[in-house]
């Protein structure tokens, strides 16, 4: 049992990025000695890590050039095998495009064919893009969020000054403008997301419009008011739920052969709002992830917390 516990403690501290320290008292008593040992080595100019690195610098340079050349050769070799750009005989330029145009509406059910392309034929690619957005906001959250471990006196002073400024000027013009504009902007964003399969637009553009509306609201009414309904927890929940939904929908699609064999999701009449199978829910998922990411970046870079 005790071994188990120590294993989980090790794992937890490893995930947290700390040094693995189980017996803290022992570590503290031996730590200074270790520091001294390193210092002696540096003075003695023997076996010092920096010296070793410097001695190998020529090797590193040669290796880096070699690896780069290898990659260039491989990539150029692949490019040589690709069909010429604009070659009328290549498959991508006639058969693929022709099939998309002829059978696109029948196969995907989307009038806006770009949505049919990115959320049906190439849905896996779009899934990766949404994941990239989520990972970017998680990375920024890790680096910039102001919590117990990430505080400094200078930053606190600056934040206090900012709050004094915010309290002093009343921003009444911006507030009146945002009162009229923010709901309209967000509503328009929702319209663009929901009509992604019928008209130009879709998850990415609609999501960024919703994000812009949220930023406008936050800039006008203050960060505190935004936190009443949108916090880090909300962002994490929405993003993870959307990505999981996307993953589930597309897994079903791939499980059934990725060719809509045994496809039981009704496609509806092309042109209706509720049509084209999974494209509408996938658009909503992508739109929510993009909106959360946009607002998350804004909040983290200005205030350091969502």
């Amino acid at each position, binding site marked *: 049992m005790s071994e188990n516990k120590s294993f989980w403690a090790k794992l937890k501290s490893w995930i947290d990025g700390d040094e693995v320290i189980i017996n803290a008292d022992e570590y503290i008593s031996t730590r200074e000695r270790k520091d001294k040992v390193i210092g002696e080595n540096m003075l003695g100019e023997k076996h010092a890590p920096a010296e070793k690195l410097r001695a190998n610098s020529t090797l590193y340079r040669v290796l880096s050039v070699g690896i780069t050349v290898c990659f260039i050769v491989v990539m150029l070799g692949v490019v040589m095998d690709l069909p010429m750009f604009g070659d009328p005989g290549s498959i991508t330029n006639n058969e693929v495009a022709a099939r998309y145009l002829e059978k696109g509406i029948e196969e995907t059910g989307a009038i806006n064919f770009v949505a049919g392309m990115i959320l049906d034929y190439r849905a896996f690619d779009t899934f990766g893009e949404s994941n990239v957005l989520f990972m970017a906001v998680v990375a920024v959250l890790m680096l910039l969020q102001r919590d117990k471990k990430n505080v400094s006196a200078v930053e606190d002073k600056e934040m206090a000054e900012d709050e004094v*400024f915010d309290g002093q*000027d009343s921003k009444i013009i*911006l507030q009146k*403008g945002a009162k*009229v*504009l923010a709901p309209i902007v967000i509503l328009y964003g929702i319209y663009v997301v929901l009509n992604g399969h019928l008209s130009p637009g879709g998850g990415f553009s609609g999501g960024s419009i919703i994000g812009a509306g949220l930023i406008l609201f936050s800039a006008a009414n203050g960060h505190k008011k935004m936190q009443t309904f949108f916090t880090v927890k909300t962002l994490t929940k929405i993003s993870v739920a959307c990505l999981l939904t996307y993953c589930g929908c597309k897994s079903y699609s791939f499980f059934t052969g990725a060719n809509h064999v045994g496809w039981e999701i009704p496609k509806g009449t092309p042109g209706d709002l509720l049509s084209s199978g999974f494209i509408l829910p996938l658009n909503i998922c992508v739109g929510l992830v993009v909106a959360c990411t946009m607002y998350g970046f804004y909040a983290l870079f200005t205030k350091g917390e969502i």
Partner: protein
Amino acid sequence: MPVREIIAAICIIIGLLVFLCGTYGVFRLKYVMNKMHAAALGDTMGLFMVVLGLIIMSSNIFVIAKFILIILFFWLTSPIATHMLAKVELLTNKDAEERMKDK
């Protein structure tokens, strides 16, 4: 019919000239306040004249409604954005008034 097109063309050309003045001013003027003034010309007067020309040309009532919405949106957002930029500049730049005097 040609009279309508000529009026529309005159409106659009006036709007484009205003845009030209605004763009020239953005590069010609040195201080941010003056630059903002030049840029705001295009967003208000220039856009209005261009869209007015398009309204004269169009016959569908829904298209005209959309054009009017475009004008309303720009006339609502552009002054607010300019006002916020000017406010930040005044709050952060101590010698803003000195800079405004000598172009």
